[in-house]
């Protein structure tokens, strides 16, 4: 039975002694998965998990809590670490406070020491953002091409990245602004927010919406998700074989709409099939899922889902 405590709201609270092993297992699974740029940044995710680890930050970001739907660290837990980074504490100032505290209060000195450690870890490197938009110019000219990226942490689902490759027709790309002096391309708020609210929309319809909004054509559109993370004691779907429920499993799923394929190619038996893209669009849809499973349970998961791509870790 789960030894997790019900925390505030719906998040599942992790006992403090389990937080470190949970985070290190998740980090190891992510490294074994080595997701490409269709997924949220591995480096940002690994750093974020390291910051949450009590070995780095002690009890600074407690309580440790898990999203019951995705099995990933809860929004609040992730956000405390992200907010600490955004707060921009000065490591030199904190070092001074630690030195002063050692003379009068060892417990406070330890806490300040954790804050100092967090402020020093890979200063300037990004962590997972609750919401982040990025754009790069791929081609200039009358028919410019751009690549847009939207990262979002979604409750109950996981860490999602939407990636769009699109090109303009004859009048450039609406919703993107190019500074001709600096060459910097930025997303106008309207387009960014359109992507934000369509993060879970069917890709075919999203491609149509984007094409209309940008007055361009979508060449490739992908949505990739890290999560759920299944672990013993966490919230697991009903009907799982016991030996699968006892192991650690990280899901990485992806849908790609592109001109490289035709029709619908589905390699993900764990989600319902969408309708195939209409032929006239010239776009095909590929669905895939990859599992990263702890070595001890690898055989059980492979037997349960023989058609899925599985990587062992640990």
């Amino acid at each position, binding site marked *: 039975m789960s030894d997790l405590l019900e925390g*505030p*709201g*719906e*998040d599942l609270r992790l006992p403090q002694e389990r937080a470190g092993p949970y985070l290190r297992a998740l980090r190891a699974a992510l490294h074994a998965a080595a997701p490409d740029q269709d997924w949220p940044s591995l480096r940002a995710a690994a750093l974020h998990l390291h910051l949450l680890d009590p070995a780095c930050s002690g009890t600074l970001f407690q309580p440790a809590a898990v999203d019951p739907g995705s099995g990933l660290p*809860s*929004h*609040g837990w992730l*956000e*405390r670490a*992200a*907010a*600490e980074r*955004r*707060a921009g*504490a000065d490591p030199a100032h904190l070092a001074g*406070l630690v030195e*002063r*505290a050692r*003379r*009068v*209060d060892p417990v*406070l000195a330890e*806490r*300040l020491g954790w*804050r100092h450690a967090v402020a020093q870890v890979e200063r300037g490197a990004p962590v997972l953002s*609750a*919401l982040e938009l990025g754009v790069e110019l791929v081609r200039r000219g009358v028919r410019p091409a751009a690549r847009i990226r939207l990262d979002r*942490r*979604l*409750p*109950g689902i996981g860490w999602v990245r939407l990636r769009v490759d699109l090109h303009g*027709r004859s009048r450039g790309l*609406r*919703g993107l602004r190019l500074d001709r002096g600096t060459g910097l391309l930025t997303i*106008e*708020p*309207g*387009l*960014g*927010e*359109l992507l*934000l*609210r*369509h*993060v*879970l*929309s*069917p890709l*075919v*319809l*999203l491609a*149509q*919406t984007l094409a*209309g*909004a940008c*007055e361009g054509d979508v060449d490739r559109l992908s949505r990739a998700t890290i999560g759920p993370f299944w672990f013993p004691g966490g919230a697991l779907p009903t009907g799982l074989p016991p030996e699968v429920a006892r192991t650690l499993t990280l899901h990485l799923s992806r849908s790609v709409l592109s001109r490289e394929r035709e029709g619908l190619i589905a390699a993900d038996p764990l989600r319902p099939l969408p309708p195939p893209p*209409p032929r*006239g*669009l010239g776009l095909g849809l590929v669905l895939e899922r990859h599992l990263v499973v702890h070595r001890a349970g690898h055989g059980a998961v492979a037997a349960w889902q023989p058609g899925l791509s599985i990587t062992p870790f640990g």
Partner: protein
Amino acid sequence: MDKPPPAAPAEASPRRPSPTELAEWQVETGQRQMAAVARVDRLVRDRTDLAEELHGGLGELKAAGARLDELEARSQSTGLIQSISRALGRRSAALERRSVAGQLLAQYETVTASLQRASAFTDELQLCARELQHEVDGLHERIGHSRQGATLAARKVLEIEAELEALQQSGAAAPGAARRRDQLRFDERTESTTLALFRAAAELAQEELGPARALRDTVLELHGDMARFVLEASSAVNTSGRRVQALGLAADTPLVVTELHEALRQLDQTMDATAAYIDQAHALLTQVLPELNREIRARTNHSHLSLADDLEGLSRERQRELADQALREAAEAEVGAFLDSESG
């Protein structure tokens, strides 16, 4: 004359401070107090700024939350989607629509960063309070040390007085009495000076105790207030965090549905146009062109039209493929023109 009080069990005499040491201590203590006052002053200002920043951020977060509640309530009403679909016809309007979720998440990130700064500031207040308590404790220790020294010096003075009195009564002619009397008077003056210095040290420390205690209590109050504020703000932010993530999507649902309906409508039109063109092409290939070719042959006796020859020479499947491709391109061009006119 009263007898001096019985001597206490042997105890180590505190080291007598020199006048120079007392003066230096007084200066150092004054400087420490001034630095502490400056530090507390800065802490009070920082606390005010942080509290205002956090209070303002929480207010905006609460207002945005109320907007979400309103939007969610509206999204439950019937007929809304249909009325929006009718009212919003232009695809370009998608770029102008605002997302409550985006604004709310941005505000949430600002508030959580302020909260972490406030939490760090609370730790700093606690440290300052500890240091001031350490100072207060140090003053108490100094007062106790000085009073102990003064008590011992006072006892010695009384003992010396008693011995001098005894010498006086035994007579000036006793052997060594004069020498002893001089030594005792020297010791008495020395111990009196020691007593005076210890009393001065105790008084100086006692004078510093009040301000140090007041500073400490000020910082303790700041810390208590800030800690309570951070706790309440954390609770409010934590509660809204997951709500923010989920409700942002729910609040945009009517908008998302509207836009997806438009996309579906465009897709349907696109596919209808393409299908219609393909249907027309098949009619053209299978009926009109062969008939036209026969008529031309009949009139001129010329060789077959190369196009007709090519067409007849191809398999039916290949004809269909070529026609599909050509007409798809024509349909796409027409759809593009149609969308341009819609958004224009």
